[in-house]
């Protein structure tokens, strides 16, 4: 590679779902294209690519972020968790089961981002009101199920984690 293009690429090392990953990336590649194309972790979805729809929401260093609004180079050294890692670890198995039970997904396109957002809410607020749930997922668009069942699922999970009749 010639010198002129070296500032267009960068070597990055990050931890994705606990695995150490080193790659050379084009600096203009955003995090979700990196995850999907380079690592073939296609659970993180791309909708609008302007931060509005929330389908690309992943966890970086413990907090939910828009994967389309972060460059892969910015994640150099970071711990990234995608829906694949969150599923495999079982960390949100109850939330996923509630989504299933409540029919809180149909096509599933928004679901990975929705789960990351919901998990962050439940970690910070064990007893959110329905309004708080709606406000928190306001940046995650669903175009088929509708939000009512999603709010139900999140509310059900919160109640179950508090030990208040989770089966609902």
């Amino acid at each position, binding site marked *: 590679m010639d010198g002129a293009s070296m500032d*267009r690429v960068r070597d990055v090392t990050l931890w994705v779902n606990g695995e150490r990953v080193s790659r050379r990336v084009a*600096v203009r590649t955003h995090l979700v294209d990196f995850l999907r*194309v380079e690592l*073939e972790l296609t659970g993180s979805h791309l909708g609008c690519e302007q*931060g509005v729809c929330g389908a690309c929401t992943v966890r970086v260093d413990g907090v939910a972020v828009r994967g389309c609004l972060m460059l892969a180079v910015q994640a150099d050294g970071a711990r990234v968790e995608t829906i694949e890692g969150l599923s495999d670890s079982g960390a949100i198995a109850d939330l996923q089961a509630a989504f299933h039970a409540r029919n809180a997904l149909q096509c599933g396109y928004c679901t990975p981002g929705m789960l990351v957002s919901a998990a*962050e809410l439940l970690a910070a607020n064990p007893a959110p009101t329905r309004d708080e749930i709606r406000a928190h997922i306001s940046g995650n668009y669903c175009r088929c199920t509708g939000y009512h069942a999603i709010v139900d699922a999140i509310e059900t999970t919160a109640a179950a984690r508090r030990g208040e009749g989770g089966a609902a």
Partner: protein
Amino acid sequence: MTGGDRQVFNNRTINKNAAPLNGDRARIQGEDTRKVKAPDFAYERPESLDQVFDLLERHGDEARILAGGQSLLATLNMRLSSPGLLVDIGRVPGLAGVARAGQTIRIGAMTRHCDLAAAPPVQAHLPLLARAVPHIAHPAIRNRGTIGGSVALADPAAELPACCLAMGATMVLASRGGERRVAAADFFQGLFRTVLEPHELLAAIEVPVPPAGSVAGFDELARRHGDYAIVGLAAQGVPAGAGWQGLALAFFGADDRPVLATAAAAVLAEGGGIAAAQAALDRDLDPPGDLNGDPATKRHLARVLLGRVVGAMAEGR
């Protein structure tokens, strides 16, 4: 993860194949055969302010500061902006954090919205910011977006520039030669325009601790929660009998920059009441129409907001 899980989820584990994916070589060289969306740009990640100034001096207008990236990355993905170089200040030490020094609260430019709202000096002294932050976009964006990025971008419909105006904040602009300070009222020059020179970095925002008894009010009207406001109002002042002392009403989404409604504030200061202040607002605001509404709609919504926000402030809500 157990070995068994790995088997089960084999199709979801990271591709460890060392061979480049088809098209990789072209992509790395910036000649993408697929749909890479952002235009080609160079990227530097300085680790000190001196390195930032080096890059800004060397590249001038070609360089764009990358702070939280929550607006810049969207414009890059849409190819609405095409900088030659991104200067990522995310790892420059000393740019984040909120601290009180005497009667001033200094907010580092890289302070993220989520940290801003939770910072003890903000919670204790700057309720306007604490009220405004939940209106900024969505939680995942607040986890990355920064006050410096918002202020330097100068989107006329953004929350924090208007808050800075209402609080009488001072922008600290750093360059190789040192710092200069510019009042918020002088900093915003128009649509996405500020007094920042190409060799300067917005390093911090200094906010005076409001006087005792000061109350804050904030609200905005948006089509959907988290959208940019059609019209919004950030207000701060001290109730004094039927009137107000030091009342500042900063509207956003109402012009090409945040605007202080001085005529309406003067009416309220003298105890003139909300209806008279709403009438006076026509002298303060001359909103251009946009996709969210024509000028008459925006004037109406501004009057509605003034009534709601100042009414709530007067009642101590």
